[in-house]
């Protein structure tokens, strides 16, 4: 148990910023990012404890948990919107106010808002490569896609971000 705790502690130290950034780029607030990141590592730690063998690809393992947690978050948020119409105005829809954000905020906020609206397949690859410094070969391994495809997707992703910002 202590050995596993030490191992996962090291994993936490290694991935906490990357997972946080991965989440932060996809949600609407720092608090939400913190909450989802925390849930990701909690679930990860539980799974890690129960695993008999070592997890081969820790990076893929944690990103998958983070993706699922984000999906859960949006599912709950949509459900909340659907069941509570009087509160709907209070819920920030990050796809609506990109224009205002572009005027009032920095390039970072514009890009972040655009990433949040990006198709999922481009979203992850952009974050991994540009925000978390993953090499194209690593993303290729993680996604089981050829490196060339990743390269093309990165190019298209950037193009889509540009389009989303300019559309707003």
């Amino acid at each position, binding site marked *: *148990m202590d050995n596993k*705790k030490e191992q996962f*502690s090291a994993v*936490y130290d290694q991935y*906490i*910023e990357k997972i*946080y*950034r991965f989440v*932060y*780029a996809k949600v609407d607030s720092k608090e939400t*990012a*913190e909450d989802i*990141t*925390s849930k990701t*590592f*909690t679930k990860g*730690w*539980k799974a890690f*404890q129960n695993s008999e063998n070592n997890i081969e690809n820790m990076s893929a393992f944690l990103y998958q948990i983070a993706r699922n947690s984000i999906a859960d978050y949006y599912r709950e948020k949509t459900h909340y919107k659907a069941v509570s119409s009087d509160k709907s105005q209070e819920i920030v829809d990050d796809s609506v106010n*990109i*224009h205002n954000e*572009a005027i009032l905020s*920095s*390039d*970072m*906020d*514009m*890009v*972040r808002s655009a*990433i949040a609206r990006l198709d999922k397949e481009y979203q992850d690859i*952009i974050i991994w490569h*540009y*925000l*978390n*410094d993953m090499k194209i070969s690593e993303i290729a391994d993680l996604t089981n896609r050829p490196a060339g495809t990743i390269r093309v997707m990165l190019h298209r992703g*950037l193009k889509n*971000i*540009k389009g989303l*910002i*300019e*559309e*707003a």
Partner: protein
Amino acid sequence: MAKITQKRIISGLEELKNIKPSSEWVIFAKSQIFEEQKEPTILNNQPSLKFVDFLKFIIFKRKLAYSVATLTFMIIGLIGFAEYTMPGDTLFPIKKLAERSEAALTLQSGIKHNVVVLNNRINDLALATKEGKKENIPSAISEINVNASELAKNLKENSIDDISTIKDIASGLKTLTAVEGTDLTVNTDIQDIIQSLIIDLEKTTLTEDAKEKLDNAKKLYEDKKYNLALEEIFYLANNQ
């Protein structure tokens, strides 16, 4: 919005890349994650808790065992002490309780139990008289009357089919007649018992000598010489 350059997008991505959670939150979140695991750890420790409970249970059981043992010794001591009590003594009810328990354990019932109890009370009276315990004599006589009444009633309803029981009854009553001041003519229950013994003996196959003794007993009983009738029955039963 106006056109945005690739350079600004890359700049925005670079800024995002520098986004980091606060170090305080990182430490706090880490502690929370491992803290949450304490719960399962506690659950995992349940066997040790159970072991502690088990130890407590054993200690409790030992205490209980000591208590039960002490209580048992006290009861045994009390019963042992009560063995030497007589009717009228404080602990005499315990002696009676012990007799009932013994009767239950030895599957003693009906007439046989009545006989044992009556003989015990007769022995109590004999002892009380011998030791000069005058305060016990009234209670002993009272106990004899009660038990004699029960036995008489039982003998009217059931016949005795073994000679040893007749011998025991005769022996007990003979002891009673030996007690100073005993007068069987005033106790109709004892008279009834003697009569029942005669009736039951008539039903059994007797030797000529025994038949003669029984005829004598009948005659003595009719003459209200109960002590002598009892002597004949006692002799008959012992030689049958």
